[in-house]
């Protein structure tokens, strides 16, 4: 996303103050796994409910007032708006607080921030989505976007995995994609369990087995860092050039707008210059600190 496009986003600033959150109201909570829940929420200010838009891959700062702010990607698709969704993995102070909330709770929302998945580059191509754990959250925003414009894209393959069946997020999405004949979906867990009907093994290995063609294709990868790092070589082996591989990175953030300093990799800020990067860009990162 260019700076011009960013300035268009400024119309969503509260009182022209980039740090002032909008109040959003939690309308629905889906417990995805024992440690992940999805919050559905809408703006208290109805004008924003009508006007607010974002692109898949963008993120927001959610705040529990009195506890703090944390960064989450917006996980629903702009093609299915009406409300916003964020998947919350319970790991720290703010995420624990978000896990204690009930419907009707008021929280803070700033965004959308960051760049987005390169939908224009993906048009007309075969798409391979590779996700692990909570990493499906940003991917599902993109996947639904693509499915809702199905004729603009080629074949779609989705490879998703989690540690165990209980750790699979967005099972309702996985079910819809499995039932969608235009989408090839494979779901895997690390170790076999009784009653499990899907694949067994780590995501990169299953990707290697499925061996999607790299011809006129793009791969989008999102998951824990170890999965991302191990998926790149598999894709390269399948013939994907670094420019054909896209991922989204996660760093500790506070401001979300490239000022507070901490999320940089070399001179790039994940919040302002990312979070979406191609593997070609990552290969050129000066630092291995991603």
């Amino acid at each position, binding site marked *: 996303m260019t*700076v011009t496009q*960013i300035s268009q986003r*400024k119309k969503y600033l509260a*009182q*022209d*103050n*980039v*740090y*002032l*959150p909008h*109040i959003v109201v939690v309308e629905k909570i889906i417990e995805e796994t024992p440690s992940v829940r999805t919050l559905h929420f809408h703006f*208290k200010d109805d004008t924003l409910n009508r006007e607010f838009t974002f692109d898949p891959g963008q993120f927001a700062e959610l*705040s*529990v*007032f*009195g*506890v*703090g*702010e944390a960064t989450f990607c917006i996980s629903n698709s702009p093609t299915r708006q009406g409300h916003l969704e964020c998947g919350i993995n319970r*790991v*720290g102070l703010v995420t624990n607080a978000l896990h204690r909330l009930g419907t009707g709770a*008021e929280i*803070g929302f700033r965004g959308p921030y960051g760049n987005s998945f390169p939908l224009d580059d993906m048009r007309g191509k075969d798409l391979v989505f590779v996700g692990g754990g909570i990493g499906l959250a940003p991917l599902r925003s993109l996947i639904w976007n693509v499915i809702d414009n199905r004729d603009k894209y080629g074949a779609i393959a989705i490879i998703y995995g989690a540690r165990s069946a209980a750790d699979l997020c967005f099972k309702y999405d996985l079910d819809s994609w499995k039932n969608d004949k235009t989408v090839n979906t494979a779901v895997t867990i690390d170790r076999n369990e009784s009653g499990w009907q899907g694949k067994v093994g780590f995501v990169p290995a299953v990707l290697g087995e499925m061996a999607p063609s790299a011809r006129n294709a793009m791969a989008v990868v999102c998951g*824990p*860092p170890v999965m991302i790092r191990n998926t790149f070589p598999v894709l390269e082996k399948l013939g994907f050039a670094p420019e054909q591989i896209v991922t989204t990175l*996660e*760093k*500790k953030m*506070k*401001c979300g*707008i*490239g*000022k*507070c*300093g*901490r*999320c*940089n*990799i*070399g*001179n790039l800020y994940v919040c*302002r210059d990312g979070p979406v990067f191609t593997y070609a860009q990552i290969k050129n990162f*000066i*630092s*291995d*600190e*991603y």
Partner: protein
Amino acid sequence: MNSKKINKKDLKKLLDTWRRDFNLIVPVLENEVITMDVWDGKDTAFIDWYRNTVVPPKANFLPPGEKMISFEKKKDGIVLEIPRNGQRQIIFGVRPCDARSIAIIDDVFTETYEDTYYLSRRNNTIVIGLSCNSPYDSCFCTSLNINPVESAHVDLLFTDIGDDLLIEEITERGKGLLNMPDTIKKATKADTEKGQALKDSLAAKVTKQVNVKDMEHRLQACFNDREFWEKAAAKCIGCGICTFLCPTCFCFDINDEMLKKQGARYRSWDSCSFKAYTRMPMENPREERWRRVRQKVCHKYQFLPANLGVTACTGCGRCIRLCPVNWDITQVLAGVPQKEAARSAK
């Protein structure tokens, strides 16, 4: 350039006038620490004892801690309120190195998204420079192309030329402050010549030098030389004082507090010297100290130059003279190989 002058004895009169319309900030010695703080109106003795502040002027725009938002849980929901800043102020006595630092931070807080809190203070502030008559041993401003008598980034520049202070009018805003014909006189040719001569003689007093030519690319070439960075970080104790007191360090943290139904969101200075700065629940990209020292040096001399075209260092020397273990950034910089000699990346 138009130059004026004021007798040192009359400085109090001038400051008294300014104080009527502005919050007047001057060098203040409190608990053995020199900061820029509100003038008590007593005297202007600081003009003789003051060399430079310990706490840089960034603190006047980006305070060590500030309230960003107050919130209150009411019956019909959460109510947010923003504190009002932006009292009109004059900062008097900013050294040329620190004047440059303000310009650097201005860029950071205006690019892409404007930082309301910083700018509400900055836009209401008149910066009055004071040439640097007695640089410290740890100063190396001239290596960064800053002269101790430098009029860049200030509204007026005062220079101590003996009994008088020479005043250079830089901006219209600054000029408007000098409407006191009984105390402010036109400078004579001899006065301006004295000022000119100081440019050379004071620059010669800055003896510490470091060659920063092509530093952005030199650092880029040795970025992955772990051995180099481990050596550079060897004696650092990670206390963060060099970053807190650096005039160009701007990194901050945001935290909330809540007491029953009322609370606030605060911003406070943070530092890349600390592990917690980048620590995430599952991992930390800068767990080792050498990575954090590398971040500090490269942010100043490589990343900010790449992003905004400016080096985020003014050679003010605070990180050297205030370091508890005598870590010296100029020694690290001097050790960065010339590009062609850079050791191969690991």
